[in-house]
């Protein structure tokens, strides 16, 4: 084991965003009248919920790129949206530099909105088709700095356009005149235009072609270096995570399974789900070990399994896993893992 030394040094890094014991439920029972049911001669109110996030605790450290990975429906996008204040949490708290922000009013939230920006998955849907690129980029700058003169706004916009590799003279064009990769650059420019400290990127390259993905990833890495950004990067693409992430958080069915420095996670994944996920990446080289097959399918987040949410598909599950929800424990590699089998030394 040679990987233990460099990773543990970083733990002293300052934390920028803290997510504490976050819960998010969505009601799927419709409005009040639809919830009223007749049961055994009595009127009762029945509500069903999708349990999207169940007690996730994460801290995003200054200057890092924290990647959240998982399969569709695991709650990773919900985490991103809740952190940004686009959804309000059902439980738990979100703090920015030590100040709680999830219970603030819109007005109180304004200064934080400038510091936290978001990049969305689909650049075709996230740009307003009826606004020119210049309008799209000027709007946030003017909104957050109402006293700044028009000339200064334009300077700022042309500066960010240049920094993402879009010719500032194209400002009069509309979004549909650009390719997917260019549109995603414009989305990134829009996020950068207000000089944020923290960027949440929700699958920013999933809709793009391989050669364009590389361009956009490089751009994001350059921006991180030159502007000292912190990323919360949501993705399902593990190859991208391996390249881009400082630390990786693996989610399954709304819970955090494993959180570890990227190198350690890819070298020695501890959680059985992480192991299965990593073994499924299609690699270029031949003769890879056969992937770990999981039995069954992801259970519905409406009725969560008892105990460890992964126990029904886990090859190492025992009685305790069915009963008791595993807590995150520290590993030798500087990460954390929530698994009874790891804790008991069974794997």
């Amino acid at each position, binding site marked *: 084991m040679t990987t233990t030394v460099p990773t543990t040094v970083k733990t002293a890094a300052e934390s920028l965003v803290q997510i504490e014991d976050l819960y998010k439920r969505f009601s799927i029972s419709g409005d009040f009248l639809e919830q009223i049911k007749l049961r055994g001669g009595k009127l009762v109110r029945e509500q069903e919920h999708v349990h999207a996030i169940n007690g996730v605790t994460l801290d995003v450290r200054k200057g890092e790129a924290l990647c959240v990975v998982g*399969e*569709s429906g695991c709650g990773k996008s919900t985490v991103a949206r809740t952190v940004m204040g686009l959804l309000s949490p059902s439980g738990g708290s979100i703090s920015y530099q030590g100040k709680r922000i999830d219970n603030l009013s819109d007005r109180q939230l304004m200064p934080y909105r400038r510091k936290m920006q978001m990049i969305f998955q689909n650049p075709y849907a996230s740009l307003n088709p009826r606004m020119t690129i210049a309008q799209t980029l000027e709007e946030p700058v003017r909104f957050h700095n109402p006293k700044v003169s028009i000339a200064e706004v334009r300077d700022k916009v042309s500066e960010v356009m240049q920094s993402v590799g879009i010719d500032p003279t194209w400002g009069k064009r509309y979004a549909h005149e650009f*390719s997917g*990769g*260019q549109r995603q650059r414009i989305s990134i420019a829009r996020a950068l235009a207000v000089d944020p400290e923290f960027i949440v990127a929700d699958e920013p390259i999933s809709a793009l*072609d*391989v*050669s*364009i*993905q*590389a*361009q956009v*990833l*490089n751009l994001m*890495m*350059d921006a991180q270096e030159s502007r000292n950004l912190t990323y919360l990067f949501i993705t*399902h693409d*593990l*190859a*991208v995570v*391996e*390249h*881009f992430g400082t630390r990786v958080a693996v989610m399954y069915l709304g819970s955090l399974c494993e959180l570890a420095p*990227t*190198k350690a996670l890819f070298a020695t994944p501890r959680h059985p789900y992480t192991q*299965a*996920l990593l*073994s*499924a*990446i*299609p*690699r*270029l*080289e*031949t003769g*890879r070990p056969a*992937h770990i*097959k*999981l039995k069954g*399918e*992801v259970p519905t987040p409406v009725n969560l399994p008892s105990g460890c949410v992964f126990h029904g598909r886990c090859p190492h599950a025992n009685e305790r896993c069915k009963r008791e929800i595993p807590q995150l424990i520290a590993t030798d590699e500087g990460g954390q893992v929530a698994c009874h089998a790891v804790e008991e030394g069974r794997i």
Partner: protein
Amino acid sequence: MALLEVKNLEVRFGLRSGEVHALRDINFTLERGERLGVVGESGAGKSVLGFSILNLLSRPGYIAGGEILFEGRNLAVMSAKELRSIRGNRISMIFQDPMMTLNPVLTIGQQMVECLLAHRKISGRDAKNIALQKLKQVYIPSPEKRFDQYPHELSGGMRQRIVIAIGLLMDPDIIIADEPTTALDVTIQAEIMDLMLELCERNNVALMLITHDLGVVSQVTQQAMVMYAGRIIEQGPTREIINDAQHPYTQGLMNALPQMAIPGQRLNQIRGSMPPLQKIPDGCAFNPRCEYAMEVCQTQLPDYTSSGGCRVACHLVAKMKLEEAAARQIEEAN
């Protein structure tokens, strides 16, 4: 005779703004039981190729030239009636999004039985038995129950298995799979790819796998072709292409993958993006993005050069091969 032989296929789209070439100079063969990967980015023409093999192009697209020989019979000029006996029967197709492929108002069973009864003169009971057997083949748990369920009651991975089961219903000779796992998660993708591999090997079915994912092609196929702007730019044995790509575009595509870079370092990007079909540059379509572009690349469409077991459409590779040959001659003369 090859099972499928495509010769000089050319597909055009007659648009109001003029004719565009969607496919040019497409030549390849597919043997019985062989697995061929078609790789390219969006707009490369790989899906159009899949569609044109079954002559499924709709206006304004049409086959402007060339032959598609299936067991020696040309699908490009076949009557609609004859085509119907081949489509879904001898050659079947699997699409990207299983929700779009399955009919939402019919049960799984109805769709499968319908397909069987359209092609074979058998009783409904026999059709059901065949359908159930195919569902078992793709490892659908409790097939009798699934048979009466609607597509929306199943998960994405399960739906794609059903689509594969429908593709296998008639024991086809060729399956054309157009991005069959792109809409699925990695763990499900790995399962589906394993399943397709197993089924193709067991039933000796030829597979034409259309995908943008070089990793998937590397794991599943024996032969591969890389497309760019409607043309095959490199084709040959998959391993040779993955390990020793000749065309600068193939190299670039491979080097752009995060797994080829050192973590934390910049990725090797290809500059620019693929041109739209209306604006394909003169000469080699890749020349404005190519770091090795020479003068001849801007004016002359590159011909195919043999390199090992591969065919490559690149002036630079051609030049290098010529120089190698010349050097060898000089050596021999000495």
